[in-house]
């Protein structure tokens, strides 16, 4: 991974109403460094709808359109169309949604926009459950996790939906994953996405939620790093649905990642082996696509 200078300017105010250690706020800080101030944020119901929040704690220095839960893709399409009619090609429209608003309720409007190849960047900051309402499972919640709607022995028995593959299958110009633990990589991806005007660009950002994942707040970035290092959340890019490139190959067991979090504490060694198997399988598939 190449080193480069991180832009100095912040488009996020210091002091906001996010929880201590919130990965989603770190994600926004890095994203805006890459995007700059000519950006419109379209935010559906999610944690960020609160964090962008009430005056004087407004966290962003860019305009915010807080839209209905299932409509990030649709509202962004409308904003983009109007900007195009005004010949404003400079402004970047960014849909900024959580995993519930992307994987579940918002998938229809996202898929519609991606099929029309709308000219905007869709960002899913993924904290792997409905955190704003108090940790209910989403279709992004990984196999094995406990949430308030997959409690006790009924922990989640299905795999996390692979949203990047779903978007890549729309043959959009750019789909990528990024992590708050890899700022250079993440900011570069946002800069690249910004430059690739003319179609839908999708960035899936891994954003730790200390309160929902039951980890202490200072572990937020470390957990995100472990997710990449254990290939639980690989960093990769897909151009036009076919050109895959893997940005980082981890070598740690998923056990290191799982054992650090309360939401996986109940898992037995056999469960962890099963998750390792799934992770290896997913990575193998990805590497074949990347022709590694």
């Amino acid at each position, binding site marked *: 991974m190449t080193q480069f200078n991180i832009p100095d300017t912040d488009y996020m105010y210091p002091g906001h109403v996010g929880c201590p250690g919130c990965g989603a706020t770190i994600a926004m800080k890095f994203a805006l460094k890459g995007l700059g101030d000519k950006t419109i944020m379209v935010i559906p119901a999610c944690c960020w709808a609160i964090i962008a929040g009430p005056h004087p704690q407004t966290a962003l220095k860019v305009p915010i359109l807080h839209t209905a839960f299932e409509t990030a893709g649709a509202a962004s399409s409308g904003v983009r169309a109007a900007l195009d009619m005004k010949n404003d090609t400079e402004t970047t429209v960014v849909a900024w949604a959580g995993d519930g608003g992307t994987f579940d*309720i918002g998938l229809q409007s996202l898929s519609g926009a991606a099929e029309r190849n709308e000219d905007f960047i869709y960002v899913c900051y993924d904290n792997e459950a409905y955190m704003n309402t108090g940790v209910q499972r989403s279709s992004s919640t990984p196999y094995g996790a406990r949430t308030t*709607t997959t409690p006790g022995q009924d922990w989640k028995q299905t795999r996390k939906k692979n949203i990047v593959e779903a978007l890549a299958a729309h043959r959009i110009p750019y789909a990528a994953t990024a992590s708050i633990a890899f700022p250079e990589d993440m900011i570069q991806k946002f800069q690249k996405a910004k430059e690739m005007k003319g179609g839908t660009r999708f960035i899936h950002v891994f954003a730790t939620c200390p309160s929902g994942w039951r980890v202490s707040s200072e572990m937020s970035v470390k957990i995100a790093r472990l997710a990449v290092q254990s290939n639980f959340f690989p960093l990769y890019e897909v151009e036009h649905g076919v050109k895959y490139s893997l940005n980082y190959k981890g070598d740690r067991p998923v056990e290191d990642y799982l054992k650090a979090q309360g939401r996986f504490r109940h898992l037995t060694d056999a469960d962890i082996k099963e998750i390792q198997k799934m992770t290896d399988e997913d990575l193998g598939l990805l590497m074949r696509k990347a022709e590694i």
Partner: protein
Amino acid sequence: MSKNVKFIQGNEVCVEAALYAGLDFFAGYPITPSTEIAEHMSLRLPQTGGKFLQMEDEIASICAIVGASLTGHKVMTATSGPGFSLMQEGLGYAIMTEIPCVIVNVQRGGPSTGLPTGPSQGDVYQARWGVHGDHAIIALTASNHQDIFSITVDAFNMAETYRTPVILLFDEVVGHMRERLVVPEPEEIPLVERLRTSVKAGVDYHPYLPREDGRLPMSDFGGVHRYNVTGLFHDMWGFPSNNSGVTHGLLRHLVDKIKNNVEVITRFKEYYLEDAECILISYGSSARSALHVMENRRSRGDRIGLLELQSLWPFPYELVRKKCANAKHIVVVEMNMGQVIRAVKRAVDHPDRVVLANRIDGFFINPTDIKNILRLIQGKGV
């Protein structure tokens, strides 16, 4: 035998009551302030042999319960404002196909995202007319945990009796409040079970041919009878029809089965109405403040009474008219810009005597708000 006493949230009471009523399938989606219903269901249903599904959104939730109900189970979903809006198409479908189900709306401030954590009673007319097209609906409400329990059981009973969706219009205050609940003993509250057809396998079954008493016996979908279900206007076999007689007949049936049973469906509580010169009319959490004011004023000798409505739709026009016949002042207490007051004004002989005591700022209506209105009525100034 010792009583089963719990100290729990209103949302949890609703879950326990639904299980008491025989619910065994719940599909839902997280939304404040109703999320605890889904959370508690996810814990309780596996314990009782039922099934909990977390869906991808609210229209998915209502459609899932409609499918499960048709197949022979007692079902429910729960949501709040924006989710209730998303459910409207499924709600209309359940009305048209006459599928029993219960929909809980723990009201929050609206429109749109509104006030997710603030109470409101602004969805009264959405419950009535949110669905497009002519139709009838049953909507019930309650102000305390004991009543949430019994009214939830009532909702399941009415859903089965009239083969209709029933809406439970709670609000953020009663949903999130914790108070004492004495769990009724089994069989203490009568339950209405699914009326299943006596038509044998291989004999022509008419899913939409009402009996003489108006009820439609059901046959578990996918069971011994093959039949059609559609949101289109349909004949007695359930097949689509645009025959004018069939269309006219079905719409009349959908409306009349509820309209003709207003008195049976009506639920209310009354306090000191016999000699009341001033009558407070309220429902849900607002009725608690109204009750407090009423008791306080009574102890000082004022001739004041309270009519607490527990069924909002079909609106009990005749009941309200009779109860308010001798009142000089009628004060409707609700957390909205004036919704139930519209129905009250239509019901009473002297609509000019009806005034509103409301609050629309996301805060619970408190006794002082009501007392201020009473002082104005009495010409005392605030």
